């Protein structure tokens, strides 16, 4: 994946096919799903069916096949659109099976068919229509640190795009956790039953009942904790959605209004110079709108995408950022000095690069007129964490604004003084939170700023 670059110098990111409201609706759907899974007490099959029902509202699915072997016996669950023919279904199941074999890298045991009337997978009949491969999506079922134990294979009416992939993998991740947990609990109960079956005395029975009671209590406590966690997560999402609608209402309308306004004025103007200036303002407004949309999408991607943390070299990240900002550095006559080597951290390459890019580009931007920017990047290691500092010789920030600027679309200046949309630091904060890190700033007006981000040290896989 290419880093989601943003801003005026950034190449436009590949945009998802759907409009942003669609993303908002999907967040709602993910919420629905999480609610469902939090309260999940029934069998896997019921859950999977409920989930598929929700998922088909968002993705144009023709069929979905789930194969998993988390429990003692492998299981298969099949869903398909009503008009699906048996041969099509067979082909879809065979493809699911191939993905399963491939992803779990085992000679898969014969899946037990739960759906009546659908036998074990057979190779697809050669006369079956060959669907477009972009319409297939096989998602591994995996719980952190364990081997893949299943696959969710989706076949769509139309090719899936990146946004669909992000959405579907968010679901399959949740599903994997749920199935895993379900089997773990089954196993535990079974073991307990066996252990207790041999002992028949009344006392045993009493203690057994106590055991069950305490288990129920523990289960409830666990459930409550999970609900609280999810609720907090969703409150955060809802706050973000708010910020989003707010910015769409305020910021996205502005350039449109300007384009319209200047076009009106154009119609009544004969003077060549005035005409030119209106046209260039129209151009600027439409470019501004493009930047804004890209920024919003970059930010929303942060909320929806799952991040996998892995060892990352900060030196490499900085080298990448430096080369992207080369033009900017040269034109501003500034320089960027960095400690070498910088430590390695546990993070997500793309998001980390985005965060460092945003900090360094701010450091280059917010200098007093006529002052060449000097930026220095250093790192500090303490207690298993790495703090990266980005210092500048810029205008500095008054204490009362230092928290505010990390919010979405919070700026301290008009666009005339310093261009920008005010999302850069919101992305930094969000990205760091997602990587189990933190971010902040120390500064005083007129004395430059020292922005920092902090992450866990790299964890070398055993």
């Amino acid at each position, binding site marked *: 994946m290419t880093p989601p670059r943003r801003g005026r110098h950034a190449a436009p990111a590949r945009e998802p096919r759907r409009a942003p409201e669609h993303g908002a609706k999907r967040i709602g759907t993910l919420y629905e799903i999480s609610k469902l899974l939090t309260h999940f007490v029934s069998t896997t099959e019921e859950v999977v069916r409920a989930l598929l029902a929700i998922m088909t509202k968002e993705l144009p699915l023709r069929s979905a096949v789930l194969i998993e072997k988390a429990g003692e016996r492998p299981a298969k669950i099949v869903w398909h659109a009503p008009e699906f023919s048996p041969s099509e279904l067979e082909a879809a199941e065979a493809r699911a099976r191939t993905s399963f074999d491939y992803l779990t890298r085992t000679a898969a045991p014969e899946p037990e068919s739960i759906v009546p009337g659908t036998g074990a997978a057979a190779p697809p009949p050669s006369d079956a229509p060959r669907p477009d491969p972009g319409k297939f999506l096989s998602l591994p079922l995996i719980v952190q640190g364990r081997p893949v134990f299943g696959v969710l294979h989706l076949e769509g009416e139309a090719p899936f795009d990146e946004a669909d992939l992000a959405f579907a993998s968010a679901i399959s991740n949740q599903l994997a956790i749920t199935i895993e947990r379900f089997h773990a609990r089954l196993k535990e109960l079974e073991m307990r039953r066996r252990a207790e079956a041999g002992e028949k005395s009344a006392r045993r029975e009493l203690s057994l009942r106590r055991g069950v009671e305490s288990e129920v209590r523990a289960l409830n406590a666990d459930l409550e904790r999970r609900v609280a966690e999810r609720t907090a997560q969703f409150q955060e999402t809802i706050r973000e959605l708010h910020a989003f609608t707010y910015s769409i*209402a305020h910021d996205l309308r*502005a350039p449109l209004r*300007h384009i*319209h*306004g200047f076009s009106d004025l154009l119609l009544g103007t004969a003077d060549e110079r005035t005409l030119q200036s209106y046209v260039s303002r129209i151009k600027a407004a439409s470019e501004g709108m493009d930047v804004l949309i890209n920024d919003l999408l970059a930010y929303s991607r942060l909320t929806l995408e799952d991040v996998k943390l892995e060892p990352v070299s900060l030196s490499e990240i900085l080298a990448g950022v430096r080369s992207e900002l080369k033009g900017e550095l040269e034109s501003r006559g500034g320089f960027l000095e960095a400690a070498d080597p910088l430590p390695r951290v546990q993070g997500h390459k793309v998001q980390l690069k985005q965060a460092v890019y945003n900090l360094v580009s701010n450091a280059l931007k917010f200098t007093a007129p006529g002052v060449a920017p000097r930026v220095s990047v250093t790192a500090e290691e303490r207690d298993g964490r790495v703090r990266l500092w980005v210092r500048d010789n810029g205008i500095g920030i008054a204490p009362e604004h230092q928290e505010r600027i990390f919010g979405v679309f919070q*700026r*301290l200046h*008009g*666009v005339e003084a310093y261009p920008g949309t005010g999302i850069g630091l919101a992305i930094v904060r969000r990205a760091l939170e997602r990587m189990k890190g933190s971010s902040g700033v120390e500064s005083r007006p007129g004395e430059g700023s020292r922005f920092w981000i902090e992450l866990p040290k790299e964890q070398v896989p055993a």
Partner: protein
Amino acid sequence: MSPRGFVILAVEDDPDDVFFLKTAFAELGLPDCLRVARDGEEAVDYLQGQGAFADRGLYPPPSLVLLDLKLPRKSGFEVLEWRRLEPAFRRIPVLVLTSSRSQADVAHAYDLGANAFLVKPIDAREQVRLVAAIRSFWLDLNLLP
């Protein structure tokens, strides 16, 4: 003081929106009646006659404030909150003039004591009519304190 005897303070950070306002005021023959503060902090400074706005000859107390909501440093809501606690400025009418039609924004602005909530017009002619209407209602018809 402007030759007309009144001044309107527009709190607006967007240079294009400032341009449209200036054009509308000029078209109505009121080019000297408009003053601009570019963020919430400047608005407070202006009203208090401090900082860059200490010269009351150049920056007389406004008869009316046009307030955008999304502003750098201090938002329009924060300016409204501040004004509520300031007896000296509570009576100056504040007309919110913004891009948003959000019902939540409208309710919040009125709760904080805004006197009107206007949506920035998309059309330049409409902008002139709006300024004319503001002038005739708020400054000619309405009795101000």
